[in-house]
């Protein structure tokens, strides 16, 4: 981890209009949950629907994509990354620094708002807020690691990331149960399920994978993607404008 790389990444990620983009989705989530609580009162099934179906399934992966791919993709595209690459720095440490910043951003704009949304909807009832908050935080780390790697592998990271989130996790995952086994959302949900405890199945919080499998898969994904991203960054071609 290199503090200067992290600082430059944070300045780019939060600079200009991108910060507005990052704040838009959590604002929508919080407004929606506030309105639902006011209009419909406290209802755990609504809370599960909103936190599971909207926060964990949509807000977290989208913000993971914006923060993860956004922490390195634009600099690769415009060539500014050359100022990091022309330094005697380990490429793995560049990736780790960017991951730390992206995870911090996603925690702040996705996991914390998920926790607050849960508290707004159901208070501390059934541990839903904390359960989904932790699930969102864990999922955020995994999405960031995956999308940083994707941004190094392809210039079309955002499109590929959207396809993964919207087509694979949401669409295919809904119709093909087997696909859920390869879904960050489901792995994180296994942790949420554990935090909520024995009442989780009756509340409809069930993951397609066991807790053990979820933790192992998440760990392998984060470690594997981060390592692979560093080694691909070492071989990144910077070809200039010619």
């Amino acid at each position, binding site marked *: 981890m290199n503090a200067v790389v992290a600082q430059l990444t944070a300045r780019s990620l939060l*600079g200009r209009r991108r910060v507005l983009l990052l704040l838009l989705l959590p604002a929508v989530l919080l407004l929606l949950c506030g309105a639902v609580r006011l209009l419909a009162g406290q209802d755990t099934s609504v809370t599960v629907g909103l936190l599971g179906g909207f926060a964990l399934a949509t807000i977290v992966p989208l913000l993971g994509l914006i923060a993860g791919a956004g922490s390195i993709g634009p600099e690769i595209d415009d060539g500014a990354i050359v100022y990091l690459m*022309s330094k005697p720095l380990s490429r793995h440490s560049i990736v780790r620094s960017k991951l730390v910043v992206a995870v911090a951003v996603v925690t702040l704009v996705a996991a914390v708002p998920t926790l607050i949304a849960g508290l707004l909807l159901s208070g501390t009832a059934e541990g839903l807020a904390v359960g989904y908050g932790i699930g969102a935080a864990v999922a955020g780390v995994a999405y960031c690691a995956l999308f940083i790697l994707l941004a190094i592998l392809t210039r079309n990271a955002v499109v590929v990331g959207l396809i993964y989130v919207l087509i694979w996790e949401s669409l295919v995952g809904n119709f093909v149960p087997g696909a859920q086994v390869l879904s960050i959302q489901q792995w994180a949900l296994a942790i949420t399920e554990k935090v909520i405890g024995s009442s989780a199945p009756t509340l409809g919080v069930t993951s397609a994978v066991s807790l053990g499998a979820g933790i192992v898969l998440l760990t392998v994904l984060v470690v594997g993607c981060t390592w692979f991203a560093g080694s691909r960054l070492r071989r990144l071609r910077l070809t200039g404008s010619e």
Partner: protein
Amino acid sequence: MTTMILDKVSRWFGNVVAVNDVTMSVGPGVTGLLGPNGAGKSTVINMMAGFLAPSAGAVTFDGEPVWRNEEIYRRIGLVPEREAMYDTVTGWQFVLANAKLHRLSDPAAAARKALETVEMTESQDRDIADFSKGMKQRIKIATALVHDPQVLLLDEPFNGMDPRQRIQLMGLLHTMGDEGRTILFSSHILEEVEQIAGNIQVMVAGRHAASGDFRDIRRLMTERPHQYWIRSDNDRALASAIIGDQSASAVELVMDNGTGSGYSATGARDTRAALHVEATDVSRFVRALPQLAARHGIRLYEVSPADESLESVFSYLVTR
């Protein structure tokens, strides 16, 4: 020693060969990498900077490979051609960040010195996004100088600089070269290279066309045959008059039947007939032409150089 060596280096991108079997050695002093746009200069610089693996051959710096060797950046400074930087920070913050990334013992002092060298101390507290092209160029140079490198690679460094900044940078490169550092800069402008580089390497269409002292290469360039397009009221008679003179080696009568290609001085396609002349002795030819025309009562409509583009000058060097 600080010598960068390209040994039989080729680089291709898919089916496109950007650099073709180039062998060159760049040692201490200022070396200009000259060539038209698209000649492969940036590809060569990117390979020297370790940002691109050669498809064949080897790029080494003092015997060490540069590809996938992060440690060489302690000794190499790079000024990229592309303008993008982390422009949400100020000039000072950016140069300081570069000094810190090099893990220098006193990054603030190094950043201050680099900014003084490029005369950017007055504007250093403004955001990079608000800088002019020339100012950005100077900040880029400051980031490359901040760790006092032995080798400086600059890709088209004079782009966007005003004349005063150019002279200042030329002086700086001169000084650094005289100090025994290895400076390589690319340019497509002959005059820029002529003014500061003792040695030049010429690239054309991915190939290493010439290398050596600038004066020798300049002589090769000016001694080449010059070609002209000429239009007159009697091309045929003028053709025979020119070929009768000793100053031209070839005259072609290009008709307007679609087989030839005449071009006007503006470069637009000219459907009328014209003469294409290859002059071997340029100074004699330009004096003789009006006299020949007057003697034969021929009216000249247009005389324009056919090959004054840099590309044609370079192509001549390649085909020699």
